[in-house]
């Protein structure tokens, strides 16, 4: 496994890094997706996108494309 968007529902992973330098990447980090933090996938919206995650004790929704910027390692 390499990126957050591939995490199956209910699966957990640890963030390795967030790719990119643009606004989206900065926002992802500001929202707490920093190296070392644990993320759990809670599911997807009925239309398949966006996805829902739990990070730092709260729920965060990301589009698949955004979640693909987050490199993770499985736990």
């Amino acid at each position, binding site marked *: 496994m390499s990126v957050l968007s591939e995490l199956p529902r209910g699966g957990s992973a640890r963030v390795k890094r967030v790719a990119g330098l643009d606004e989206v990447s900065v926002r*992802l980090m500001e929202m707490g997706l920093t190296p070392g933090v644990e993320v759990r996938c*809670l599911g997807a919206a*009925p239309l*398949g996108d966006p996805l829902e995650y739990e990070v730092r004790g*709260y729920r965060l*929704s990301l589009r698949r494309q*955004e979640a693909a910027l987050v490199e993770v390692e499985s736990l």
Partner: protein
Amino acid sequence: MSIQTPPATITVALIGNPNTGKSTLFTALAGVRQRVGNYPGVTVEKKTGQMLDGPRRYLLVDLPGTYSLAPRSPDEMVAVDVLLGRQAHETRPDAVLCIVDASNVERNLYLVSQVLELGLPTVVALNMTDVASERGIEIDAAKLQERLGVPVVPVQANRRRGLGELKAALAAAVERDFSPPESPFPQPFQEEVARLESELGAEPVSGEAGNAPLPRYLVERLLLDTSGYLEQTVLANGSTDLRSKLAAARQRLIAAGCPVPAVEAMARYGWVARMLDGVVRRPAERGVTFTDRIDRVLTHKVVGTLVFALVMLAVFSSLFFVAATPMGWIETAQGWLAGLVEANMADGALRSLIVDGIIAGVGGVVIFLPQIMFLFFFIAILEDCGYMARAAYLMDKLMLRVGLSGKSFIPLLSSFACAIPGVMAARVIENRRDRLTTILVAPLMSCSARLPVYAIMIAAFIPPVSYLGGWLTLQGLTMFAMYSIGIVAAAGVALALKKTILRGPTPPFVLELPAYKWPSPSLVLYRMVDRGWAFLRRAGTLILAVSIVVWALLYYPQDPAATAPFMAERDRLEAQLATLPAEDVGRAAIEVQLVEVAREEQGAHQRQSWLGRMGHWVEPVVRPLGWDWRIGCAAIASFPAREVVVGTLGVIYNLGDDIDIEEAEGESRMAGALQRATWDGTDRPVYNIPVALSIMVFFALCAQCAATLAVIKRETNSWRWPLFTFVYMTGLAYVAALVTYQVGIRLIA
């Protein structure tokens, strides 16, 4: 020892993450003493409130909810400028009140770490401690206070608990000297900031009085902001020299293991972890929360979608059907008031101005209040309970197809009832380009004011044919087509806007799905009243002014020669009536004739009024649409509001302006008049199916609604966008009506 006299009014800026109960706290502290305005040049709302605490007077400035003080656009810059005292015509706050969600303290402290660097006395309000303890999260506030070096006050804003302690902490904080805590950044980064700071010493800075140096926080941001926004805005002439210095500094930081922009999030979250170590106790095993249980249903593939559809149906039908009752009362009150004035005043220009200009104009403003208040009642509930974010989550993929995000769904759905609350609801969309696109296409949704236009044209000209054993009627299909035209046009325009004038990178969706909670009734009530009041105050005057202008165009010029024959006829009938005894059967017939004469007079007057003449002027323009000057005149007269077109056609065809097409009798009289109408001097009928369709298509797409344009002006804080909306919609409507008529007439032939 020097004795400092406290300032007469202490200014306190309120800042916090979204969904932390910031508005609830603001309302709890400031009560109803609130003022709403706009910061110049941006669309950010400026909300201030007064708070009294014994002898102290506070001015609370509510800054927009944000996760981070990292400005990348003019809207995001406002909060930073206010806090640094760089905002024009605003004094720098004396203190900052930072609200933190206790159940989500880790991410909330990220913003606190930025706020502390600004060097203002800061007080942290630890809100929703009850929600946190329900989840088994315990926070040692005293220990956190010690670590942060600023007062930490536990509060429950929705229950008004801890407000006294909070005020006391604020009073104490402004009187103490504040020393910012140690920087959370690693040494190499701090060195680069210091180096840049000294290099910038000579750079002219925009927004700073005299030649004051750039505040340290902005120097840091300059180094961290890879979007280039700050470089362009903060430095008056972003020299290439500076750009190369920044690039070099960033290169050195990569080598030192502190790459920009990641270094900020890592440093701040590292700091947060140090602050919270031993301060927060979480349950070892994360239990299933209230929110988990609700979300299992509400974001479920089938059930969740169904519930969403039901919620939206409830919101929509309240706007469409429930709001109709108070709207009816407003119309009745307006009619009663007009009748009262008519009964007590002599006929003349002043009476006409009061009745047809002012009372009708004020009525035309107030009539929108029920829909605005119903929509904001629902939006406040949905927002406060946490469902609003789920709605955006559920609808995002659909809206992404037209280049928007899930947040545009509710504003656009509401616009099917009325574009005014829809445009006002677009405020929830943070991204400027997405918000503008939503506002600009919202008036294309077929609102309830278009219904009378569709209804009368369909009743008069679309044959009542049905298919599939009565399940499908041609009239119903026509109505459906009109709604579809609006949706298709909106999708096309949204896509076109996002590819041209509002082009830019797709804004991040990255949306917090907050925990569910019970909405606060006082906040819901406050929002509802506040929105209604904001509409009356900001848009109301503009709408009233337009109504008066259109009244004058219809009233003037007064031409005695044109009305003389009707006067003579009326005098003759009245004299005849006077000779008949009260119980004579002939009286009724004469009274009918009198009404008829009055209507003919009204029609004759209108046809020669300025507006009637404008109808004649535009006839060459509207002729390719299949319209005669009467329809052109009615279209112009409907500028204040689309539904006025029915009343105007009523007057033009001598039916009176009070024709009620919602009643069968009124509808058939109107339909009959339209069917009988002929081109001047011929017996060729004006209306046929292509003409009726061209009128409907025109009204489906045109911007004949002064109220919507006034609200767009208010929401975008500029005349450019309402003007743009009017031009593009009128152009679109004209072309579509032209195509409809030209194709239709050839199909008939």
